[in-house]
């Protein structure tokens, strides 16, 4: 049997038994809106599923039933015993159809006109009529229907793989002894065959079994049987699994202890049995683990077909993309997320994606795209459902909100689009112009939200009218299994999620990597990059004898720098920010089940959970996000937050990692570290002169070298270095795509990260200005100047690409003159027309003056109106609401990303990531053009 059908049967049987109970409750309790909502949803789900499985008869009955329930829900119809009886009888009909379906994989022919008429009469409020219909035999249509298939195909029972079991027989039916009467004959003796139970194996033939005859018999005698398919798999409560898991963990621990004991004894009699116990336990553990985890793809299996059928039904072309189907999810979570996902995809297809003609009128490709993307992120599983359809129409939502009384016009006026969009999650809220059989009744999104929130998740929506909507479901990782690296610091062990670990480096002692201190802040040179380090010991105050804050802690970083000890550095990455965590020892990686920490410890940001290791010890799981945000603020940690809010913003805003070097004179020069791809030491005798330029063979290609000092002379420098002949010069390598160039300097001095105020001079070539860095006046170098020296057309290729089109206008908002001066030429040579302003106020003034831009690039931390407020203001206003905004910030945490997305930033780029900025700009512009 089709997997899909099989699942449908299991699910529907479950829902039906639930419905029976709930309806009876409802009868007693007619005014319970929650109960009514529940019932309505269940019927809706059945109907929806029937619809796409191509079961018109079931769908018709469910649809009629749903209509009546809808009236109940809207208060247009009273819940009377007659009405409930009618609904129940429609459920009975559904059950009967389902049992036939189970046996034959086909709906019985015929229709349920009488029942549907009664339901419709009820729905239209024709109470008298409805009560008159009360005694309608709901089976009438059905019973008539059953005869048809029976005559269709007179396949003898013997052909069936599994014969129906006579109701009174306990034993397995003996196929050999079953007479093979044609179906017609079976019809004549229905009693024996009334209760068919397929024995754990789906029927593999399409021939209607004689059971049909039984099922088709007057219903008063035949209770709709329990679904046999539903019996094939059993549902076990998660509690039970949880218990099982706990016990297996115990078993594992005991086994470990036994093995430990055994190791100390040679040639024990226990050897063999213990070995066996060992294997069995491992397998058991694995099995129990497996029972709980499933790839999310399982929940998606139905979707391609759903989309296929929907696109036929709705006359749309829809392409469904599924990414990350292998993302593992706890079974319980998966179960709860399945229906919501189906709902949302259906919604996207029905409401989101426009009909073909509308799409082509809007300049979009005919084929709409629905994209599902699942991935792990920061202790959560994210599921994105995005479509490139019409998006949410704010005015429609407004109208509906006012009509249904959830908000007044005045309230709406004060809300952002984002807030207004949230209304679609309210029960009974549908903006679909018409109720289709697919969706539009206003169930759906509230179900989605209820289900998601039940498992502690959140659902986010961002939508741009005309361009599509994206729903992001974020589910906590609470039960998911992750692999984690176990590390030790000060004798305590911690787990770091493997997903954020980039590499491990051994440092200090005799190893080649040395930890250095910059004003007490530890850093590591790693492949010509400088990695900020944080010591787990000092971060977690592990050595403090009392836990009083500020207690003296031994700093292993300084010990490391003094090369007195050896340690490991776990290089972790959060977003675009890499940093190293100093630990004493590194153990293995282990698969762990993340458990949330106790409520009284949730305020500690460093931990994302805790877990029990194989040896039975409890261990805390470090949260790289928390550590990252802690490292960024370590220097400010002891200052009162309120007092220094302003200062800190100013500080972080311009904090930038700079590479200090000396060249052409004693005064130190600085270049933003992010612009430098690598640092190299180049032997000068390998440098050749070609075409009036210095070049060196570098990584299999020629790399031009530009001396910083224009008076630099290769020959004399080599001559001046004495006799060993291995004159070397440090070179800063700048790379762009497949090109790179080297800037020859005299000495690399240091790398600092600090607050910087640039005083501009701009009168000398290649220097942007000067700043006080590390206490000295330092010239800030304009890398772009040297790039064009090496390749006069360095930016030319890019310009050409834009040459054919009108240059895009960019509005650049940043309060720092330094960045404006850095970025403006960069964007300019990349072929954009740049307007730069120093604060959000000026930008808004430009808007009000009627200026138009293709894209806005804005800083986040700015005095006065910050980037978030600015984006909000832009999105709220009319004139620029369609203009994409890219955020630019020096430190990017996932929290910032989220907030950025919420207020309407199209993308987020780390400051100084030139490559990313340019890519993002062209990407965003392409997207915007595509959508326009």
């Amino acid at each position: 049997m089709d997997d899909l059908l099989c699942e449908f049967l299991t699910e529907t049987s479950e829902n039906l038994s639930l419905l029976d109970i709930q309806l009876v409750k409802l009868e007693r309790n007619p005014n319970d809106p929650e109960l009514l909502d529940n019932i309505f949803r269940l019927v809706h789900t059945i109907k929806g599923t029937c619809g796409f499985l191509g079961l018109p008869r079931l769908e018709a009955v469910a649809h009629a039933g749903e209509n009546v329930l809808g009236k109940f829900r809207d208060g247009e119809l009273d819940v009377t015993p007659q009405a409930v009886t009618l609904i129940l009888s429609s459920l009975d009909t559904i059950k009967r159809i389902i049992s036939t379906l189970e046996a034959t994989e086909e709906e019985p022919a015929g229709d349920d006109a009488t029942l549907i008429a009664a339901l419709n009469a009820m729905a239209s409020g024709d109470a008298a009529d409805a009560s008159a219909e009360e005694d309608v035999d709901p089976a009438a249509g059905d019973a008539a229907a059953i005869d048809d298939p029976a005559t269709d195909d007179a396949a003898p029972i013997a052909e069936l793989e599994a014969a129906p079991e006579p109701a009174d027989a306990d034993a397995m039916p003996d196929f050999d002894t079953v007479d093979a009467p044609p179906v017609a004959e079976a019809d004549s003796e229905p009693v024996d065959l009334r209760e068919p139970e397929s024995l754990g194996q789906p029927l593999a033939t399409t021939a209607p079994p004689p059971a049909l005859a039984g099922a088709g018999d007057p219903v008063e005698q035949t209770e709709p049987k329990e679904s046999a398919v539903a019996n094939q798999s059993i549902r076990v409560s998660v509690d039970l699994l949880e218990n099982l898991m706990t016990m297996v963990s115990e078993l594992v621990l005991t086994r470990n202890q036994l093995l430990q004991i055994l190791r100390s004894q040679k040639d024990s009699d226990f050897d063999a049995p213990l070995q066996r116990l060992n294997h069995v336990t491992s397998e058991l553990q694995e099995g129990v683990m497996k029972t709980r985890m499933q790839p999310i793809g399982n929940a998606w299996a139905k979707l391609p077909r759903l989309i296929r059928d929907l696109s036929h039904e709705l006359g749309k072309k829809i392409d469904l993309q599924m990414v990350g189907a292998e993302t593992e999810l706890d079974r319980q979570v998966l179960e709860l997320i399945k229906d919501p996902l189906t709902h949302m995809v259906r919604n996207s297809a029905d409401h989101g994606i426009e009909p073909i003609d509308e799409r082509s009128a809007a300049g979009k490709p005919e084929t709409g795209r629905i994209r599902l993307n699942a991935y792990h992120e920061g202790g959560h599983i994210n599921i994105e459902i995005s479509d490139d359809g019409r998006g949410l129409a704010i005015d429609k939502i407004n109208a509906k909100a006012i009509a249904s009384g959830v908000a007044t016009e005045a309230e709406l006026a004060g809300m952002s689009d984002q807030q207004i969009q949230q209304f679609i999650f309210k029960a009974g809220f549908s903006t679909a112009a018409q109720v289709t059989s697919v969706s539009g009744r206003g169930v759906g999104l509230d179900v989605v939200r209820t289900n998601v929130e039940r498992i502690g998740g959140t659902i986010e929506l961002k939508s741009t009218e005309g361009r599509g909507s994206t729903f992001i479901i974020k589910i906590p990782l609470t039960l998911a299994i992750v692999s984690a690296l176990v590390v030790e610091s000060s004798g305590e062990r911690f787990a770091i999620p493997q997903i954020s670990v980039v590499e491990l480096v051994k440092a200090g002692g005799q190893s080649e990597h040395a930890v250095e201190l910059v004003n007490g802040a530890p850093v590591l040179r790693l492949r010509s990059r400088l990695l900020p380090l944080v010591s787990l010991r000092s971060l977690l105050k592990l050595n403090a004898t009392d836990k009083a804050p500020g207690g003296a802690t031994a700093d292993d970083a300084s010990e490391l720098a003094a090369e007195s000890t050896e340690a490991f550095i776990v290089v972790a990455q959060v977003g675009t920010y890499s940093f190293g965590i100093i630990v004493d020892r590194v153990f293995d990686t282990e698969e762990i089940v993340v458990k949330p920490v106790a409520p009284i410890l949730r305020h500690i940001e460093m931990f994302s959970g805790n877990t029990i290791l194989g040896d039975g010890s409890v261990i805390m799981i470090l949260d790289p996000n928390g550590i990252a945000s802690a490292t960024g603020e370590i220097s400010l940690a002891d200052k009162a937050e309120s007092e220094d809010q302003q200062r800190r913003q100013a500080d972080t805003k311009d904090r930038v990692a700079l590479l200090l070097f000396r060249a052409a004179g004693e005064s130190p020069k600085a270049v933003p570290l992010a612009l430098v791809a690598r640092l190299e030491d180049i032997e000068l005798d390998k440098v050749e002169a070609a075409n009036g330029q210095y070049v060196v063979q570098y990584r299999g290609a020629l790399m031009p070298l530009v001396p910083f000092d224009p008076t630099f002379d290769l020959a004399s420098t080599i001559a001046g270095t004495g006799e060993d002949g291995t004159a070397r010069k440090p070179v800063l390598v700048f790379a762009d795509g497949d090109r790179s160039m080297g800037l020859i300097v005299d000495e690399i001095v240091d790398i600092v990260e600090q607050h910087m105020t640039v005083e501009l001079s701009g009168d000398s070539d290649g220097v942007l200005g000067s700043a006080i860095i590390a206490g000295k006046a330092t010239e800030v170098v304009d890398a772009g100047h040297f790039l064009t020296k090496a390749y006069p057309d360095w930016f030319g290729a890019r310009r050409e690409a834009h040459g054919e089109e009108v240059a895009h206008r960019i509005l650049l908002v940043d309060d720092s003159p330094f960045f404006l001066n850095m970025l403006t030429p960069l964007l300019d040579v990349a072929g954009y027309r740049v307007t730069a302003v120093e604060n959000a106020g000026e930008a808004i003034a430009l808007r009000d003056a009627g200026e138009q831009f293709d894209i806005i690039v804005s800083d986040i931390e700015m005095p006065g109106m910050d980037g978030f407020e600015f984006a909000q203001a832009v999105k709220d206003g009319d004139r620029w609401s369609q203009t994409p905004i890219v955020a630019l910030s020096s430190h990017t945490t996932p929290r910032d990303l989220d907030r950025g997305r919420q207020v309407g930033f199209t993308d987020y780029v780390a400051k100084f990531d030139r490559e990313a900025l340019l890519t993002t700009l062209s990407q965003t512009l392409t997207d915007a053009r595509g959508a326009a």
Partner: protein
Amino acid sequence: MNALVPATDKSPARLADEGRDGQTVDYVTMTVADQLFGIPVLQVQDILGPQRITKIPLAPSEVAGSLNLRGRIVTAVDVRLRLGLPPRAADTRAMSIVVDHGGELYSLMVDSVGEVLSVDAKDFDSNPATLDPVWREVSSGIYRLKGDLLLVLEVANLITFAARDAA
């Protein structure tokens, strides 16, 4: 409750009977710095001897750490520190009483665990006004026993210090 071993000669059945008639209430007793405390017996899940405890850095000082109780993670709270008393001497080994609060298990570390006492409801008194505010916060009242006073510990209040610290 498999590890709950009442130190009295009363059978569990009899304890339950006494609870039902409303006259007496059963408390698991414990001592902290020579003071007798009690927790209603039905709130107690387990009684543990000294355990291997994983310290939790940055946690409030009252939190001694967490431990593994048959596959569940239990947060250990040192009642001494919670009550503002000096930490127990390094050579004494703490006993623990495991309680369930809101689905989470907490292990309360005390100096020793005594017997299960049935106390008469009429012997109940409210906390004296002169009692230390921290003690008043975690205790819901006092039973006057013959020759001793039994402070009733309010588990919910005993473990809500984190919120207080964070505020």
